[in-house]
């Protein structure tokens, strides 16, 4: 530790050309693009494994060959991390980014706290599970569906014996299935809407296992003394209240883009419902309104892993272009191909509203 002349503390400083914050699919793909082009690249992640959300996904993934489709999530995570490292990027795990200042410097905590300066920063910090308060929500046994998934698939621990899930989107359906795989009972899935939110194929998978999906049911409260003992839900059709006996309640009610660092850096934040909430404004190439700051993946709008990969690649290419490491011609070619792929990925009924939101962002949302 160096103390300056006036006895002021100075943190160690380091510099690098491109930094990706987050080693999920978006950050790894952005870093791979940059490193493969010969640019000095560092990836920072607070986790002890690379791959972001993918490390806990044991199911096979949608997408096409470029996204590792048909393979299991953790398998894709391993491959992306390997590709990224092979391209020459340095992946620093257990490194948490604590701050991103208006002068463009990052405050990082690894073995010690240091300041990292980079010409280009790709924010690929993913998303957080949405939660909401209700009576009993602080009891042990109430958790996010993703947290339950981490427990069973990463740590090999069952959160309980009998679970109720809230939300029938893809995450709720997939996690319900994985709790069954791990040996838990799933009492049911509550859905406030009148139809299942996730894909039919995922719905069918859980229904085959005998899991009931209660449509038009609203979670009211959780009862219990030391932990969850029962879940109360209101049947919105009949107006009656049901009590389910369970010791675990998993919330799968959506994800919120995690973009605090962008906000701290002074990036303009916009609220886009279709993309999960507040995100840093970005153009069609994943540039934010601050020079040298890019965003990709769930932090730029909650979507899917395949989209996170291609957005990461796009951010990488845009950064390379701005750094002068790629000719405008080559950059244009690569960007066109990636945008074509992203359009295809957002082509279905579920993806179209997100595609339109992204278009609106790229087109006119720029000036307040």
């Amino acid at each position, binding site marked *: 530790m160096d103390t300056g002349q006036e006895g002021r503390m100075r943190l160690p400083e380091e510099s690098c050309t491109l930094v990706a914050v987050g080693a999920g699919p978006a950050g790894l793909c952005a870093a791979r693009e940059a490193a493969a082009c010969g640019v000095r690249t560092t990836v920072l992640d607070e986790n002890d494994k690379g791959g972001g959300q993918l490390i806990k996904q044991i199911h096979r993934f949608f997408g*096409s060959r470029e996204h590792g489709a*048909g393979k299991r999530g953790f*398998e894709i995570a391993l491959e992306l991390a390997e590709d990224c490292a092979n391209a020459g990027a340095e992946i620093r795990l257990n490194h948490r980014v604590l701050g991103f200042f208006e002068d463009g410097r990052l405050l990082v905590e690894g073995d010690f706290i240091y300041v990292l300066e980079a010409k280009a920063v790709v924010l690929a910090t993913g998303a957080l599970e949405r939660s909401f308060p209700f009576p009993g929500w602080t009891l042990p046994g109430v958790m996010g569906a993703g947290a339950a998934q981490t427990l069973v698939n990463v740590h090999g621990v069952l959160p309980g014996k009998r679970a109720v899930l809230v939300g029938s989107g893809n995450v709720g359906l997939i996690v319900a299935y994985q709790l069954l795989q791990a040996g838990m009972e799933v009492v049911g899935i509550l859905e406030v809407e009148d139809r299942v939110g996730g894909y039919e194929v995922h719905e069918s998978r859980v229904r085959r296992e005998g899991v009931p999906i209660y449509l038009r049911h609203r979670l009211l409260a959780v009862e219990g003394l030391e932990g969850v003992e029962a879940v109360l839900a209101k049947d919105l059709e009949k107006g009656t209240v049901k009590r389910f006996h369970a010791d675990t309640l998993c919330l799968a009610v959506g994800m919120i883009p995690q973009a605090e660092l962008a906000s701290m850096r002074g990036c303009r934040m916009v609220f886009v419902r279709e993309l999960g909430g507040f995100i840093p404004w970005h153009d069609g190439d994943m540039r934010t309104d601050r020079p040298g700051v890019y965003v990709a993946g769930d932090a730029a709008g909650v979507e899917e892993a395949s989209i996170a990969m291609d957005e990461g690649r796009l951010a990488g290419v845009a950064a390379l272009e701005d750094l002068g490491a790629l000719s405008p011609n080559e950059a244009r070619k690569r960007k066109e191909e990636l945008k074509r792929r992203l359009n*295809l*990925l957002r082509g279905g009924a579920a993806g179209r509203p997100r595609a339109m939101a992204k278009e609106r962002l790229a087109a006119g949302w720029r000036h307040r």
Partner: protein
Amino acid sequence: MKGDWEKVWEEARERPVALVDCRQEIPCNPCEEACRKGAIRVGEDLCSAPVYDPGRCDGCGRCVALCPGMAIFLLDRRGGDGQAEVTVPWEMCGEIVEGERIWAVDGKGKVLTEGKVVKIKWMGGRWPTRLVTIRIPEERALKVRGVRFRENSVGSSEEVDQEYDLPEDYPVCRCEDVSREEVLKFLKMGLRSLTALRRSSRVGLGYCQGIYCQEQLRKELGMVTRRSEEETGMFKVRPPVRPVKLGRLGGVNG
């Protein structure tokens, strides 16, 4: 689709053939990649539903193992004895052995019939899937989408008092233990911004940095101010975004 299944039904007299039950627009094509016979096509538009030609399928089962939606099955009626063999992908951890009796269920989870496990095969890359083949009366075969050991679902609930009163004193901010009642009280006093709420009630000032309560507060504020989420804005973000020991910031390791 109906016509497709008639064709599957016919072809299955000669050899096992795939039955593809995927009709939604999902960005996905591993089935096409899996098939070496060109029997399944998704094409350039990744979100279009797969187009399947049972005439080209040789029943290899690769697509059954690799389909992320677990939406492909095999049908085999070669026996010609009124029984059919149906193969489904199975990803449960438990034991399953040949000879065992198991329930065959449809896509809604309804039990169709009981069958006998006649074959188990691992397929599909480094982390394979079990393909379980069961023998059942053939008139049910086209409907089978899965197998399970339990006949009934575990879901059960009881009706409780219709006039269930929800308490209002539950915490909105779990870190600083601020209840919904308190937040409503501050709103009644005329506070109209996230910052004001944060300063006066300490909501959002805890360990989680307002990650959990922020959306709820924005909603409550929006209801009284009629302002949109974007107008209400976010909590001002200050470093550190993750809790950190002061000593470490001061240069002490550990």
